[in-house]
């Protein structure tokens, strides 16, 4: 039984899950790669971006990192591909692969 959440993934066998699906330890959600759940991903088109940052607070999974008051590339390890950021962007700086 693994207690290491970073080793849990879509290919994990039943033998490697924790008993009762307990998660030992705190602050472990960053280590859990929910990005593999997504079927479509947002694409950041940097030349269209005005750095208004409207996309950042609407992301349910905090997958748009901000450095020096500027958003950077998506955190695809955790992005579930919901597409809310695409709706929030007024400048067409985010598209979804397969979705406009």
């Amino acid at each position, binding site marked *: 039984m693994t207690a290491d959440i970073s080793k849990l993934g879509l290919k994990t066998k039943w033998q490697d899950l924790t008993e009762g699906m307990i998660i030992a*330890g705190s602050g472990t959600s960053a280590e859990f790669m929910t990005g593999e759940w997504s079927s479509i991903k947002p694409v950041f088109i940097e030349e269209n971006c005005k750095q208004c940052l409207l996309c950042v607070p609407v992301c349910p999974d905090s997958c748009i990192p901000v450095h020096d008051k500027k958003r950077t590339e998506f955190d695809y390890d955790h992005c579930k591909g919901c597409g809310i950021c695409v709706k929030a962007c007024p400048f067409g700086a985010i598209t979804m692969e397969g979705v406009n």
Partner: protein
Amino acid sequence: MARRDRLSGNEAVAEALRQINPDVFPAFPITPSTEIPQYFASFVANGKVDTEFIPVESEHSSMSAAIGASAAGARALTATSSCGLAFMWEELYIAASNRLPLALALVNRALSGPININCDHSDSMGARDSGWIQMYAENNQEAYDNMIQAFRISEHKDVKLPIMICQDGFITSHAVENIELLEDEEVRSFVGEYKPENYLLNPECPMSVGPYSVTDYYMEAKRNQAEGMKHAQQVVLDVANEFAGLSGRKYGLFEAYRLEDADRAVVMIGSAAGTTKDAIDRLREKGEKVGLLKIRLYRPFPAEAIAEALKNVKAIAIMDRAEGYSDHGGPLGADVMAALFRAKSTALATNIIYGLGGRDVRVEDMEQVFKDLQTMIVQNDAGDTYRYMGLRE
């Protein structure tokens, strides 16, 4: 040194719990199990135990509190009957799927309706697929002994599943019988201290309990849970062996009574097994080869061992103290028939619903069952495989 006493089944279980001295006991009263928390509350008030006794407002809450206590790292239990168990429905599955060791002292009573306070097994039979270990008693001594063994099984590292210790409402819970009790120190050293590997109140390693599982994980999680049940049979036997060394009383997955050379057998659960033994003794005096298989461990279901014990029997009556409303028989009937089928048994088997809502079971009733089995053998036909006993019709 063992002590002899005379106790009701409820007193016996409460006495076992006093000796175990669990950490947390949330409870809500319901007939006929009310006396268990009632007696235990007096132990708390008189300083006989260190237990945190929590009077809650419902069974939904008593099981929830027991689950929370177990997750926190405490040895916890509650008690209930009938509709109280039904009100714990959601929590039963939570306890089992979270692999939380805890105990439930269940005093079997009919489910409504019609509303009825007397014994049958419809409450616990409904919970048979909830992932709990279920163990049943024939008499007060067995109820006491099973309760003493409960936490050792439930907390075992290979099992980690909640356990239901069942006895028959009023028939054993309120009947006073002679009983042999262990000394407090013997019980405490047998049960030992509960030391969970992970628990909520561990400041060194906090943990999350009951996380959401998306479709990609749920099925693997359920299979993972089944692994605990697969280990339970061996643990039950190991704990029973150790208990026999302590008490001199031997337990297995089931009791085979005069079954070795029997050509006819009854399979049943609970207090009516005592009545059946009397019927068997009477018939054996007349030279009839009759026997009993009394289920102790119902979940997990020891299918292979049961089929093996019944391999030389020609006719079997499987007795269900609960309706299944499958129009095909009761739950024990379905389990035993499936076990016989898988073992390629050629025995003639019938399923008999009996004793619902406290309907009395007499020695003569069980003698008639064995007579009916003889008819099945003579006619080489099981006849109606879904029957009622003790019914006005």
